[in-house]
């Protein structure tokens, strides 16, 4: 690795001041599993690296009923995937986090890093976008909340400005009777990158009527994208396998994937249909299951 300076500030305020003082050419190190590969293999030459290792506040994962889930930028993928609140209330987030790399990578890498690296295939992005999550961005001019749906600009590029860093990932409290599911397709089970990934979240009203659905597609465009036409097929309608089939076909029709070494455009469109159907079906079951679990508390 080419030479660079190393800074490990002990608070977010100190980190922001340091980025402002040191100026261009800095890179944030959260887990380092993407950053070190960029430096070793892809010609990235940072002038300095700012490590989050000593910023204790950024390792936290917390939840409260008004603000929802907060995942600090330095929280490890493995800690997120095994966190009790994630398992109970945001299983879709754990599904994404536990698919990134190997166990070794999950013990180093972070959700925020997976997002900031901005690969179109990032497994953390579709679940969080389907949950309508945001990131809290800190910079010298203060903080701003950026909805993840508007965070990505292109492969490897986000709306982050020089001197800014992501402090936290924020997912709103899950509405009652809502559920979600993320699935990706890879030729082998582990250690692979999504050919297509789909995250779906469904919120039910009375019975099986769908109040709202959000579907996010990964690896079919330069950034993760919402399948808004497919979502519109479901909104306000009573869910049925036939309706989900129609939404899945709509998602496949609106996706604009490319052909590359992982799959052809036609193959990816087919995968969008299959995975949208599967994840919507699982999200629907999850939404009803939340109700069933809620009832059982009262029945017992």
């Amino acid at each position, binding site marked *: *690795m080419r030479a*660079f300076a*190393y800074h490990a500030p002990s608070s977010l305020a100190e980190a922001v001041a340091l980025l402002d003082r040191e100026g261009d050419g800095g890179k944030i190190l959260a887990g380092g599993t993407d950053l070190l590969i960029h430096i070793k293999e892809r010609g990235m030459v940072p002038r300095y690296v700012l490590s989050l290792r000593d910023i204790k506040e950024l390792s936290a994962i917390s939840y409260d009923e008004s603000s929802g889930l907060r995942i600090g930028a330095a929280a490890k993928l493995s800690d997120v995937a095994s966190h009790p609140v994630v398992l109970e209330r945001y299983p879709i987030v754990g599904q994404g986090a536990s698919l990134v790399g190997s166990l070794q990578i999950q013990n180093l890498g972070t959700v925020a890093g997976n997002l900031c690296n901005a690969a179109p295939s990032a497994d953390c992005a579709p679940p969080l976008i389907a949950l309508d999550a945001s990131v809290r961005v800190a910079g010298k001019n203060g903080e701003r909340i950026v909805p993840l749906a508007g965070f990505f600009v292109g492969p490897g590029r986000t709306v982050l400005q020089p001197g800014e860093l992501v402090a936290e990932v924020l997912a709103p409290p899950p509405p009652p009777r809502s559920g979600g599911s993320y699935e990706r397709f890879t030729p082998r089970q582990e250690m692979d990158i999504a050919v297509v990934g789909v995250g779906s979240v469904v919120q039910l009203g009375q019975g099986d009527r769908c109040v709202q659905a959000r579907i996010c597609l990964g690896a079919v465009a330069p950034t993760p994208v919402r399948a808004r036409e497919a979502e519109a097929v479901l909104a306000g309608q009573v869910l049925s396998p036939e309706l989900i089939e129609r939404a899945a076909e709509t998602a496949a029709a609106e996706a604009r994937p490319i052909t590359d070494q992982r799959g052809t455009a036609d193959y990816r469109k087919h995968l969008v249909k299959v995975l949208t159907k599967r994840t919507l079906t699982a999200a629907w079951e999850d939404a009803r299951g939340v109700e069933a679990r809620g009832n059982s508390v009262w029945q017992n």
Partner: protein
Amino acid sequence: MAKLVVSFELNGVPTDVLTEPNRSLLEVLRDTLENTGTKEGCGTGDCGACTVLLDSRPVTACLVLAPEVQGRKITTVEGLARGAKLHPVQKAFVEQGGLQCGICTPGMIMSAVALLERNPTPNEQEIRYAIAGNLCRCTGYDKIVRAIEVAAYSAAAQNGAASPNGQVAQTAKTEASKTEVS
């Protein structure tokens, strides 16, 4: 660039190294500390040959920037044996022939040790998942999986637990009785 001191615990021993910040934990372990048990395979986190335990959890040392381990505990394959007595996982790899060229072996063993710490009686699927980030181009994995099963169920058999796989249980019992005799 200015060198910096990184202090951490290596295999239970407080350790200070003076290093440039642009070196990986793997480089510091092998080149500075001359602990060459940890191997370099790909250098990009894909093969798992350099797996070490960082605060008891497996990580690829090639993707850890050395200053990141300040104040942390690192366990490498050198830290497993107690004098001449091999760790049960090491012993099982030797006795079951769970290796050929040996480059993946230290990493495999560290992943297996981490697995058995949190799940002392894994089934085959759990074992295969735990070593999914460790590539072996020689063995075809079966003997590695068998070695980890034997390590787990030799310990478990001594505590009276049953293996899900009868053949392995038998091997494990035999191994356990050998241990008792010796």
